[in-house]
């Protein structure tokens, strides 16, 4: 594999402290704030990772309540995503939809979150009923909010109800105040709003690092794909930075509740605020890991230089980079948007962790970006990223290979509050529909959505933010667009369904999985829909070739979704687990699990909570929450086998062009796998044979995975599995399952 060499002399000379400022109207905005409710609370610090209370706020009735964290909650749900799902379960009914007042947004960091000694320990998990999928969505996000919330005294924040005016919830962990303010004049887009609020709520310059803002943007109001930005103050740059809880439309729920922003002001961070059970172990594990990054990162992934964009060229080289709506896996223009470019474009002389102590520091930023379109045209901004998903989703998947436009698309997605992954996939779908005549200029209201037309792409996004034109339709997401296009009779329904890359209503993230059976399952056999948070197996399967057999793949689809769920229970980032590995990793048994790092996590959990676990109990902790989430889906009317089907584009070649682009590989499979002779078959016959074989293979995988997970052939966790996990202690959970056995 080609290893990009970092050359410091090639990094662009850009002043990373300069950008457009938005503080002019601050005084007027502040003066317009009206306090609707203010109540005191007693700030506390966690003990062994837990404060043992959560904060409930109803933004409609203005009820504010502290709730105890029970021992059962900690035993079964651990924290983070587990707490979020448990609160949500108790808040909603099977008939609840995303825009009902009882739907909640829960933010919880997890017990380990907030330690500063290990990389990737500042995550918040956000859970809500998704407007796209109607089932729980969970998102893992950086930024300082979760840890600061915890160091103010709460293990989770539960938001319920709907306000009739725009409000800001301010949690002051220094003074012990919770305040709900009406915010009539506040700007909406995140890069402006987070800056304004950080300055408004910080008492002085040094206090800005103690502020984190959660907010979204204009497009979240007019689409179903809104996301939440979580901020932190980057003192070196002198600006706010944003990380995204992207998937599933939580930003849309946020604006539907008319929450403008959440602001947490935490205490000044020190290394011991999480008050862990065994600091020495955490310190030693952290230092060992930091050294590993120093020694290995420069010749492994170069995360500190490239962030996650380092895999753009690897995916391209292995024919896995989604190109033109997941039709192809590579493109000759990829070098323009690969890491060798981004490492020159991103600022290198600064610190890029999204929480203290992250030595992996993948949160790269491109400074000095001059915007060419939209409401901020002519402004100079800092763009967070671009991460791999953005380069692939907004870039190759839509045929956009101009890095400046890519940065602009990335910027506007972020500030408008929409998920870059979702936007990339839905735009790729729109473009393919346009190229195939399912859409045309009349249907798009004049947008010429051909491959690579970044200007039309940006205009569609600006429309989404303004709530206008075709942007409104696109903002409904792929699933609803498919239904609209089919209903309007704009194209062949089968083709539209085959090429619309969604499952359960959620858009696929940016890996071309046609040739990776493991990743096909990794995407569609998931709880929340196709994303790479749960089972990113494509690299293992196709690049490292660590799971060659069918059984290996089924086992991987048991183990990794559980293993990775655990990060979300505790407030960890996934990247430090396998984006750097110990030098001797390949010599270890089960190298693909990175055994030394698994042990680090076991040690960090035990050292934080004082509860002794091993690597098997780690998986059991996840399995409880994972199966609970599956049952939650079933309770909401999904979560069965019918919901785990994949669009055919995810499984194999839909069109003749796709077949011909890989004819040799596909013909060989006809011989080797199907025992047929391609020489005697027409192209149509060969494609039909592939469809049957590939769908059959996927069904067989589904059977094997369900069995390994302890589920029925319909995808329902069995009573025996519930008993094994202790979930039989919850009669209402058992009740849901019983109806499907």
């Amino acid at each position, binding site marked *: 594999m080609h290893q990009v060499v970092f050359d410091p002399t090639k990094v662009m000379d850009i002043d990373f402290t300069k950008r457009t400022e938005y503080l002019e109207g601050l005084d007027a905005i502040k003066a317009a704030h009206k306090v609707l409710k203010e109540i005191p609370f007693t700030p506390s610090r966690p003990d062994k990772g837990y404060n043992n209370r959560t904060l409930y706020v109803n933004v409609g009735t203005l009820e504010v309540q502290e709730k105890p964290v029970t021992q059962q909650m900690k035993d079964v749900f651990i924290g983070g995503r587990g707490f979020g799902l448990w609160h949500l379960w108790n808040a909603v009914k099977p008939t609840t939809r995303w825009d009902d007042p009882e739907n909640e947004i829960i933010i919880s960091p997890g017990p380990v979150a907030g330690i500063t000694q290990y990389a990737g320990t500042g995550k918040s998990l956000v859970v809500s009923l998704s407007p796209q999928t109607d089932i729980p969505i969970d998102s893992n996000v950086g930024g300082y909010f979760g840890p600061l919330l915890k160091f103010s005294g709460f293990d989770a924040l539960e938001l319920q109800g709907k306000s009739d005016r725009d409000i800001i919830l301010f949690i002051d962990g220094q003074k012990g105040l919770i305040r709900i303010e009406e915010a009539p004049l506040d700007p909406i887009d995140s890069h402006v709003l987070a800056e304004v609020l950080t300055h408004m709520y910080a008492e002085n310059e040094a206090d800005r690092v103690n502020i984190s803002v959660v907010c979204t943007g204009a497009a979240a109001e007019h689409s179903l794909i809104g996301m939440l930005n979580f901020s932190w103050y980057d003192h*070196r740059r002198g600006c706010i930075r944003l990380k995204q809880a992207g998937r599933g439309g939580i930003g849309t729920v946020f604006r539907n509740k008319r929450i403008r922003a959440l602001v947490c002001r935490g205490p000044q961070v020190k*290394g011991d605020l999480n008050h862990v059970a065994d600091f020495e172990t955490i310190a030693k594990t952290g230092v060992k890991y930091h050294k590993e990054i120093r020694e290995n990162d420069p010749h492994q992934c170069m995360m500190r230089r490239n962030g996650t964009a380092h895999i753009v060229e690897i995916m391209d080289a292995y024919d896995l980079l989604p190109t033109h709506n997941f039709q192809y896996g590579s493109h000759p223009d990829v070098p323009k948007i690969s890491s060798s470019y981004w490492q020159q474009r991103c600022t*290198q002389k600064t610190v890029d962790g999204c929480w203290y*102590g992250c030595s992996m520091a993948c949160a790269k930023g491109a400074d000095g970006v001059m915007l060419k379109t939209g409401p901020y045209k002519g402004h100079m901004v800092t763009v967070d990223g671009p991460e791999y998903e953005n380069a692939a989703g907004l870039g190759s998947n839509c045929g956009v290979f101009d890095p400046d436009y890519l940065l602009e698309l990335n910027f506007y997605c972020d500030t408008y509050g929409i998920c870059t992954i979702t936007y990339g996939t839905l735009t790729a779908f729109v473009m393919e529909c346009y190229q195939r005549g399912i859409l045309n200029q009349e249907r798009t209201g004049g947008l010429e959505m051909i491959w690579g037309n970044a200007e039309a792409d940006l205009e569609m996004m600006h429309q989404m933010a303004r709530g206008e034109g075709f942007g409104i339709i696109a903002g409904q997401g792929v699933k609803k667009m498919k239904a609209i296009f089919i209903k309007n009779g704009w194209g062949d329904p089968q083709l539209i369904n085959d090429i619309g890359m969604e499952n359960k209503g959620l858009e696929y993230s940016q890996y071309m999985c046609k040739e990776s059976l493991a990743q096909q399952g990794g995407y569609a056999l998931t709880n929340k829909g196709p994303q790479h948070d749960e089972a990113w197996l494509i690299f293992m399967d196709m690049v490292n070739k660590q799971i060659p057999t069918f059984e290996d793949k089924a086992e991987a689809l048991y183990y990794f979704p559980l293993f990775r769920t655990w990060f979300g229970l505790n407030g960890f980032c996934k990247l430090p687990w396998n984006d750097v590995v110990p030098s001797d990793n390949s010599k270890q048994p089960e190298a693909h699990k990175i055994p030394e790092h698994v042990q680090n996590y076991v040690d960090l959990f035990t050292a934080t909570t004082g509860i002794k676990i091993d690597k098997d109990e780690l998986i059991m902790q996840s399995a409880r929450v994972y199966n609970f989430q599956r049952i939650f889906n079933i309770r909401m009317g999904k979560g069965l086998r019918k919901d785990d089907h994949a669009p055919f584009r995810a499984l194999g070649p839909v069109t003749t062009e796709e077949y011909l682009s890989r004819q040799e590989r596909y013909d060989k499979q006809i011989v080797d796998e199907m025992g047929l002779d391609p020489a005697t078959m027409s192209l149509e016959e060969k494609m039909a044979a592939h469809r049957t074989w590939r769908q059959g293979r996927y069904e067989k995988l589904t059977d094997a995975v369900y069995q390994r997970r302890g589920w029925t052939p319909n995808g329902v966790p069995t009573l025996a599995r519930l008993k094994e996990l202790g979930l039989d202690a919850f009669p209402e959970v058992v009740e849901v399952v019983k109806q499907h056995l």
Partner: protein
Amino acid sequence: MRQLRINLNKCDAGRKTCHHECEASCAEKVFKLSDPAMAALHIREMADGSGQAVLCDQCGDCIVVCPAEALKRNKLGVVMIDKKLCVGCYMCIGFCDKEIFERNPAWLEPYKCTSCGICVKACPHAALEIVEVPEPPTRII
């Protein structure tokens, strides 16, 4: 900037004619500790009898990685830690390739050499010196 240097030809790493007064004096006078292992420099005798010194050269790499801007050069160019700002992440420790940014389990904040020169005075063989050298350019770490 002030930098601590050693002449290993003069230093008696093997303790035949000194008691590593450098380490003892640093631990005692700088950090108020009786354990010389807690000094901000280490002198070791290698298997072949030669000496090895682990010293901070004030390279500034740790400044670059500190997420809290708790490390800065003072007027003399010496890299100093501001304990009020330090968040105890220990990235400075992990990224010091001389392995001389260290921690004392009893303290939250790590410690490093301040080029104060106390060890220089304590050395009976005048093996150590404080020299004035130009600040190296900031590296991308």
